[in-house]
């Protein structure tokens, strides 16, 4: 029950449009509005417009011939387009290979950094270095190192006595060159996530394991690994989604070649759009990439919910 005075105050407040209560209720919306306007214009609108564009046959060179064609672009992409499946295969293979390698290297790095008594800060800085280098500079620097004639990689394998490899011009060497370059660049991210996870663990569980006579491997397998799994799964989701959209490093190292054997979706979209000016087709590939990311996010989120991690 409200008192007479309170009722009066509420009534008075209702009377004015910007009453203190109303201001208080609207304040959060006013605070978030500018951010959403920018997001809406730059990220959400293009995503929606892209879906719409993907149902059109539209070339920038002949805009007057633009017409609505329904699912034609998708049908052509999946059945006629000579490159689509190759691009898909590379994108998925690249994602799996990089994630696997980064996970192993990142875990080893994090465990070693954690075990350091002195110099952890400095060594962390050193191991973090690749992550701060612009991907474009990473690509060019490694292109120099992978070079068939003047590259240090071929020099090093020559010292061991192996034959030179034409890293960037042959299918499988090019795949591994792109993968290893990306692994070099983004392993530090995984390392940092895992190191933060390790640092947050309570020390007494390890002491308990030690008292119970567990050796290093058992401690790691039975205690450490399950405990750092939750942060790991979350970062894996983001890493996977970021890998699917890779652009800079394949563009610089191989330009997607030889043929389209190292071409990810991002580069494929860029090429369809800026080389063939085919807006509808580029939009259709974008939607496929979007769906792929969505499926992976859904899969990971379900994993998180089911295992309650």
């Amino acid at each position, binding site marked *: 029950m409200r008192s007479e005075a309170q009722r009066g105050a509420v009534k008075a407040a209702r009377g004015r449009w910007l009453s203190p209560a109303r201001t208080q209720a609207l304040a*959060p919306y006013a605070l978030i509005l500018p951010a959403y306007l920018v997001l809406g214009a*730059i990220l959400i609108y293009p995503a929606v417009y892209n879906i719409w564009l993907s149902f059109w046959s539209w070339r920038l060179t002949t805009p007057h011939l633009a017409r609505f064609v329904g699912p034609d672009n998708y049908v052509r992409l999946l059945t006629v387009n000579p490159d689509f499946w190759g691009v898909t295969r590379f994108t998925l293979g690249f994602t799996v290979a990089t994630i696997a390698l980064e996970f192993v290297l990142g875990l*080893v790095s994090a465990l070693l950094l954690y075990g350091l008594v002195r110099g952890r800060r400095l060594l962390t800085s050193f191991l973090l270095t690749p992550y701060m280098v612009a991907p474009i500079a990473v690509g060019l620097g490694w292109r120099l190192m992978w070079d068939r004639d003047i590259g240090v990689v071929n020099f090093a394998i020559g010292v061991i006595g192996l034959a030179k490899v034409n890293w960037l011009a042959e299918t499988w060497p090019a795949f591994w060159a792109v993968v290893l370059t990306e692994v070099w660049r983004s392993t530090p991210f995984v390392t940092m996530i895992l190191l933060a996870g390790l640092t947050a663990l309570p020390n007494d569980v390890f002491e308990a394991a030690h008292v119970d006579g567990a050796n290093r491997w058992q401690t790691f397998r039975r205690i450490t690994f399950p405990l750092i799994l939750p942060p790991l799964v979350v970062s894996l989701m983001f890493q996977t989604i970021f890998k699917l959209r890779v652009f800079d490093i394949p563009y610089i190292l191989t330009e997607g070649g030889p043929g389209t054997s190292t071409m990810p979706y991002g580069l494929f979209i860029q090429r369809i759009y800026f080389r063939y000016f085919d807006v509808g087709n580029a939009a259709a590939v974008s939607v496929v990439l979007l769906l792929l990311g969505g499926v992976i996010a859904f899969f990971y989120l379900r994993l998180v919910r089911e295992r309650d991690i």
Partner: protein
Amino acid sequence: MKGHEASIGPGVPSFPLARGIMTALLAFSLFPVIWVALTSVKSETAIFSIPPKILVWPDFSSYVKFLGFGRESALRFLWSSALVSVMTTLATLLLASPAAYAFSRYHFRREKELLFLMLATRLLPPVTAVVPLYLAFRYFGLLDTWFILILVYTALNIPFATWLMKAFFDGIPRELEEAAAMDGCGAVRTLARVTFPLASSGIAATSIFVFLLAWNEFMFAFMFTNVKARTMPVRLAETMGEMQIFWQDMASLSTLIMLPALAVGFFMQRYLIRALTAGAVK
């Protein structure tokens, strides 16, 4: 780590082995950066010599060319990059911190859905925005301007920045703000004197993260700029000529891009790591 103490811990490999692996990892991480920096002071003939030269008489001609005021000066690209990165950082903070504050301090209808929507935009692949944005920017005659780069980078950073700042605001006890209000501080003064100073490490972490992303970004700059607004990464990509790569130019421009980023990363490491690992660890 000695004796039995070494086995108390999360399962770290034993010391001699650990030292060997650590050395290998360090070499793997640092060698490419050092190699690029070294190549930047090698003349073309030294670059092409086999076996690769490690000791060279430094040749700074490439730096003189790019940092001088001549026709090949790279100063305007550096200026472009610096301007776009700093403005992006400011714009992101300006838009994300009010939003983060609202999500942290208020309870309002559709709060959860709105926050989820914001985080979900992180899952949108930026490359899919290229075509619609290109058409829109062309329509408005905005291609090749700093403005669109700042706008796009800001939008890309808002979701993560909001999330990060929200975590920092959540960590500030509400009681402090209430105490300030009781002492007669108005809402604005409470924010300025209590909340923001306490959130300063969050602001630092967010700024560094956003700055590095904007400084290093290539794809949008490559597709949306041409002459006037070209940034350093785009200029760097141009060292790949039709027939050959100008290796010394490539290496010196790469070094010029790397240096500020590495300096920021090295001196602000604590904040950067907090930004990188936010959310993954509660």
